[in-house]
């Protein structure tokens, strides 16, 4: 952190911190400090627990898929009669979306949604913890990395930076956003304040003067972000274009990310996660459109579609990318579920995205094509996807710092 940066940040904040800074001033300070006005925003979504990519983006053109999943497959789009509502929604004649993801189909048709398949971390671990850790640090196989890829991809700015340039929705700061650049977590914009002004001032002094370097730094980031968000805290937020977010933690997260973006407070990176994808038992119900995975995908797809609708034209400089630590076994297990596997799928959505296409080489699902004879093989490294999106983001092309020891190969997603 350069001295100059601290000075500018602090002097700008001194005004904002007085609590009386009008919206135009905060906007002027943070959003328009560089030519080109509005910032591009990268939103990362983590599906914790290893989502079953093969039942999310269904390879209905692959005969082996139906052989491997006698009781928990998603029927071909051509399925008729009473199975129609369970059938995959065809994308390109080979892949289809799970029926719960119907709200995402219009995005696909408008070419704002791209899918990368057979993608993931090259590390062979099937541990949730390690695999999440590697995907969040951006360094598969390396446990010593102390920061996350998203923090490292924040452009090193010599000038003013917003204290809310990187925000995670939730009670803790995820690994993805930890690192030397300021990043905050918040559960709800409305509650992100100390509810007693006099006490708040005393706390601020105490944290600013704390001899504990970690508490001092986090305290500083916190109070700066609190002042920054004061102006939008009291406003109620109505999603635009009739967008309706699911009433869920994930829906709430995306709604608040949309609010932060539209408030022009200088946010460049946002993170949200959605857990509960570890379906070892009864992954789908009696019908493919029912059961655990179907319900989770309804929430997941509904929230992403609502976000897209809510953002409207603003989506032109917002990119959303989704990931999950690994895929699941190609074959179902003994309990209509799936165990821990390898490659998975990722979604990229946004105005810059060249959508309407499934990227990546399909490795096939025949026995000899499977990874270790059991899982979807990996043909694309997740860093290829993230690297390209980061490079597209606010001019950070120094990818060797973001993904040390790896040179991402761009797929042409944006």
């Amino acid at each position, binding site marked *: 952190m350069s001295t100059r940066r601290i000075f500018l940040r602090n002097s700008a904040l001194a005004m904002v911190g007085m609590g009386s800074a009008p919206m135009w001033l905060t906007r002027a300070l943070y959003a328009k400090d560089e030519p080109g006005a509005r910032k591009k925003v990268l939103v990362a979504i983590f599906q914790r627990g290893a989502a079953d990519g093969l039942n999310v983006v269904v390879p209905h053109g692959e005969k082996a898929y139906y052989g491997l999943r006698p009781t928990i497959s998603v029927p071909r789009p051509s399925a008729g009669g009473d199975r129609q509502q369970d059938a995959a929604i065809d994308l390109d004649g080979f892949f289809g979306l799970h029926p719960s993801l119907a709200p995402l189909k219009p995005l696909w048709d408008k070419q704002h949604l791209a899918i990368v398949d057979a993608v993931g971390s090259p590390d062979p671990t099937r541990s949730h913890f390690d695999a999440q850790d590697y995907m969040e640090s951006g360094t598969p196989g390396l446990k010593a990395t102390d920061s996350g890829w998203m923090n490292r991809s924040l452009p090193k700015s010599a000038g003013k930076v917003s204290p809310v340039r990187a925000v995670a929705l939730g009670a803790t700061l995820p690994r993805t956003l930890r690192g030397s650049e300021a990043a905050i977590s918040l559960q709800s914009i409305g509650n992100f304040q*100390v509810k*007693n002004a006099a006490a708040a001032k005393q706390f601020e002094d105490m*944290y600013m003067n704390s001899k504990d370097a*970690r508490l001092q730094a986090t305290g500083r980031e916190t109070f700066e972000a*609190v002042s920054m968000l004061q102006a939008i805290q009291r406003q109620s937020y109505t999603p635009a274009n009739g967008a309706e977010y699911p009433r869920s933690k994930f829906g709430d997260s995306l709604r608040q990310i949309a609010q932060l973006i539209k408030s022009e407070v200088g946010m460049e990176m946002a993170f949200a996660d959605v857990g509960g994808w570890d379906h070892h038992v009864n992954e789908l119900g009696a019908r493919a459109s029912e059961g655990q995975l179907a319900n989770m995908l309804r929430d997941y797809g509904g929230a992403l579609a609502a976000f897209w609708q809510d953002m409207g034209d603003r989506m032109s400089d917002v990119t959303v990318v989704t990931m999950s630590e690994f895929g699941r076994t190609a074959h179902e297990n003994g309990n209509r579920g799936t165990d821990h596997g390898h490659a998975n799928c990722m979604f990229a959505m946004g105005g810059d995205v060249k959508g309407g296409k499934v990227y990546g080489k399909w490795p096939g699902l025949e026995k000899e094509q499977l990874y270790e004879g059991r899982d979807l093989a990996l043909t694309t490294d997740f860093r290829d996807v993230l690297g390209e999106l980061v490079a597209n983001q606010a001019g950070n092309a120094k990818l060797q710092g973001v993904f040390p020891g790896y040179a991402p190969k761009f797929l042409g997603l944006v």
Partner: protein
Amino acid sequence: MRRAALGVLGTIVCLATFSAAANKNAQIPKDQRITQALNRLTFGARPGDAAAVRAMGLKKWIDLQLHPERIPENPLLEAKLKELDTLRMSSEELVRNYPTPQMVKQMMAGQMPFPTDPERRVLIEKLVAKYENKQAAGGTTPPPPGAPQAQALRDILSPEQIRALRQGTPEQRVAMFQALPLEKQVDAIGAMGAPMRQAMFAAAPPELRRKLILANGPQQVVQRDLTDAKMLRAIYSNRQLDEVLVDFWFNHFNIYLDKGADRYLVTEYEREAIRPHVLGKFRDLLEATAKSPAMLFYLDNWQSVGANVPAGRSQGNRRRGLNENYGRELLELHTLGVDGGYTQKDVTEVARCFTGWTINQPQRGGKFTFAPRQHDNGEKVVLGVTIPAGGGMEDGEKVLDIVAHNPATARFISRKLAQRFVADEPAASLVDAMAQTFVKSDGDIRAVLTAMFNSKEFWSVGAYRSKMKSPLEMVASAVRAVNGDVDYAFALTNQVAQLGEPLYRKQEPTGYSNSSQEWLNSAGLVARMNFALQLADNKVPGVKVEGPQAAKPDDAQGIALGSPEFQKR
């Protein structure tokens, strides 16, 4: 860090220890040793604790904490826990006494016995009637003939009485309510809406409080008792180390309360699989978890069936086969650790060994059972050890022997304990010494802890006040620090959840992180400061704090609890 430690010392000590403080391996001075012990062996010091430890002698106090059976329990805690009757019930009794609507239907159809307590039975019947009426009003099916009819509040109480219940203070509402004849009380609770019950809650005596929760949903009583008890024990127990260890080991063998049948299985799990073994032999603790219905359900092993086992007729067309969920987490999270030297093949082989370890009727709070016909009876090789064919249930027990005695387990467990009790990145020397004790003592947890408390690393400048409190530690220590009087703990456990650590609700088998970094972030800091102010200002429901109560409350106590220093231990 170094300077923070110095800040609390007098100038003379400061000068004397300056050169030593430059080395984080240096030992802390004597008067800090009591603080260190209280910070690490308890959920935070209460006023007077330090003096009591000094009077007893630190060494003796630690030894006593390592032998909780010799410490008389706090009668105040015992009185508070006595009200929470679910804590003492078997899983089967919990299902029967605090059933889901579906189970009540089975009771009504004569497929399951009713609760033994007649008043509870009536309340539950009313609840179901209300539920069925709602379903019928939804336009699907009319209530079955003969089903109990739900009553509206106006059929039970006069308009004046209803008004009184809507408008008074909580105390007035409760007083009015308790003046009703008993059968009317039961009828009224069943007919009230949730907001009306909520409004009475703060002033309700414990027995009425339980009925109010019961009317929200019987199974909620089970969950509330569990979380309330955890908080009450953390705050009030004299056996503090014992409670810290129950938290540690539950988290190590984590189970998610909201996964299906685990709603009824976790109470017994903590009481019978975890609590008796927290200072015992690791092998016993491991086996108790492996055979617990709660773990068998949570990690799906109860459904895992040998791939070579023919499907029985009773199973219909349900597909059966291996489920490797438990096998993997046993190796990765419970014993060897992810770098403990096992392969995917080992995971599958371990899963084969545990086929047939199942639960007799999990949805009814059933017990562990071995089902020979679901077991894969072939030969297995686990971590290089051949387990011959035909071993039956012993296959799983052999696996527990193999992994409990593997040196990787000794190291993994030692490191995790050291991370919780000593430092985020415990020194290799400490972990080695603890692991050696683990091996030599055949996995005796008390011996490993003793080695840790006797280590120079535990008493080092680098370890002193280096850990960030977890949400549970922060909330419990704040209440302890101000000698708060907890009537009911729901608002406190809610706070812990808000801070990112919902109790018994970590969905992933990893449990919560023991590292400080997990709890150091802006959302957490803001919430901690707000909680500190609320607590000191007597605004946390169910908790009373003595302190300056002038018209303009003095925030000093709240500021202290929300300060950076208080977030550390």
